[in-house]
């Protein structure tokens, strides 16, 4: 079992992830689009880049009504980012198994604090999803699976923090592999597709000279 998780299943999941993500992005970025015959008022490229950045910042007037999603969302995403790419065991893993080079990891306390942010953020986001009538209405099975799977990955990672029990490490890795396989077929793709989506919309607004 351990050898499958560390070996073939790992390579399989990584292959599915990479090919799936690239295929999805290729279809989106290079897919056939209708030409727009109208004369632009302003630059589409500038609009695309502007929107790509500007949507990180929520609208000032909206903020009081969506503060929970914004705060929890930022906590989760920033926490996950730091913990994913700057936790010492992850940096070591990326160095040894994938990239062949590493970078200096975050100190242990930062790793843990970012994990705590990520946990609290994810729990609150998921609860908001099931509690708020709007998000409950529009959420489907895929949203819940994605959230729970991500939670499981984080939880198994957290349980394996002592880095001594091989079974716990395997459990974490197995959940990561399932997550990777699920990724390209699911809502998790938003981690990549938010870029083309924002740029499409930004380019559209840009052509029309709207500051979006």
């Amino acid at each position: 079992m351990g050898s499958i998780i560390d070996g073939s299943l790992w390579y399989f999941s990584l292959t599915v992830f990479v090919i799936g993500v690239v295929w999805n992005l290729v279809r989106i970025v290079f897919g056939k689009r209708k030409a727009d015959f109208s004369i632009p008022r302003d630059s589409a490229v500038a609009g695309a880049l502007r929107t790509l950045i500007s949507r990180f910042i929520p609208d000032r007037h909206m903020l009081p009504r969506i503060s929970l999603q914004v705060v929890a969302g930022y906590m989760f995403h920033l926490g996950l980012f730091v913990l994913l790419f700057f936790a010492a065991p992850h940096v070591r893993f990326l160095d040894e198994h994938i990239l062949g080079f590493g970078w200096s990891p975050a100190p242990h306390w930062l790793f843990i604090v970012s994990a705590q942010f990520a946990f609290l953020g994810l729990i609150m986001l998921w609860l908001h999803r099931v509690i708020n009538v709007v998000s409950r209405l529009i959420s489907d099975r895929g949203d819940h699976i994605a959230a729970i799977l991500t939670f499981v990955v984080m939880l198994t990672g957290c349980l394996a923090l002592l880095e001594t029990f091989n079974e716990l490490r395997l459990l974490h890795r197995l959940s990561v592999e399932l997550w990777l396989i699920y990724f390209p077929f699911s809502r998790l793709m938003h981690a990549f597709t938010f870029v083309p989506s924002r740029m499409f919309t930004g380019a559209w607004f840009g052509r029309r000279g709207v500051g979006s």
Partner: protein
Amino acid sequence: MSESLERGLNKLRSQIDPQVRSFFSTCVHCGICAETCLFFTETRDPRYTPIYKTEPLRKLWRQEYTFWGKLAGKLGITDPLTEQDLADWETLVYDGCSMCGRCSMVCPLGIDISKIIFKVKTGLATAGYSPKDLAETTQRAVDIGSPMGVKIGALQAQIKHIEDDINLKIPIDVEQADYMALLSSMEIMYFPEYISALAQIFNHAGVSWTLCSEAFEATNSGLQIGNTEVAGVLVERIVAGAEKLKVKNVISPECGHAYTAIRWEGPNFIGRPYSFKVVHILELLDELQQSGRLKLAGMETERLTFHDPCSIVRRGGIDSEPRNLLRSFTENFVEMTEHGTMNWCCGGGGGVNSNERAEPVKLQAFNRKKSQLDELDVETIVTSCSNCRLVIEEGLEANDMDINIVGLTEMLAEHLVDGTAH
């Protein structure tokens, strides 16, 4: 499966392009768009959540374009898009969305929700699921040339009136004019002041312009109902008129969706670029003002605000022009808290105002504008869309609010120094 449903589904399928794919696979269903939508904020009915209104197209996409949908199809577990779905979403999309595009401005993932909603509309319209009133106006627009049934005779009568009034000749069918002005039926019927304002301003600034007897109607019911073929036919008429008169520019009137239809979507509806340019009246006025061709006198002293028509400002980029113009002849211009590209819609765009059935929802949605106005305590609202103007007038009346509403162009015309600038 009925034939019309099949047609509708095919139409929807044809709408799924890389953008739609990107949008649907990006949406994480956070629900933030709900709080941007005045139909949701004023009714608290979660079904008015913008992204929920795109559900028919999403369902089709899921079913036919995603791994899980295809897998379920192979296994024989399908959840196809049914007539009932289309019927349910007809009321949501036509009555509960003014296509204002506020959601598209706020979505953190950058999804242009209102664009997808339009795509849903095209599918619904093709399948025959559209409000009776809108279908009728569309038919009128195709048959008579105006959604309100205004014929050239009516326009000529109105023009005669105006000419007598202001002592100016209104040019009709003048070939090789610089500008060909379009009008919306509403302006002809309810707000002829706009036509006289145009005549006065252009006379003052020495602009060579004309109306076209074969193509004076700017509105496009095809766009409102989501029938791209009809939209194309209506645009084609304007293009034919403009090409026949060999004008350099076509002026889109103070009407929101007309601007979108003729300026932005028109070339795509007919599938080719224009041989002329399209400008919005505010763009032209601002240009005249900047180049010093408008001599204005007197300042409006009352406290007034500007209502941004969604199609012109948020979806059209004409944001600074009305403000520049207003500041040149008003002293007491105040902005609503959320203005410009983040303005709240009047609630009657996207065909909602032409849809009798949507009346109660529209009035409820107007509460948003009402609370914005209550905050400001203004005497006058200036706007630049005859549809907004009608909806706001109606809303003000229903709420017993004593506020004037005027079009920007006519207000500007009142401040012209007598005589021509040249």
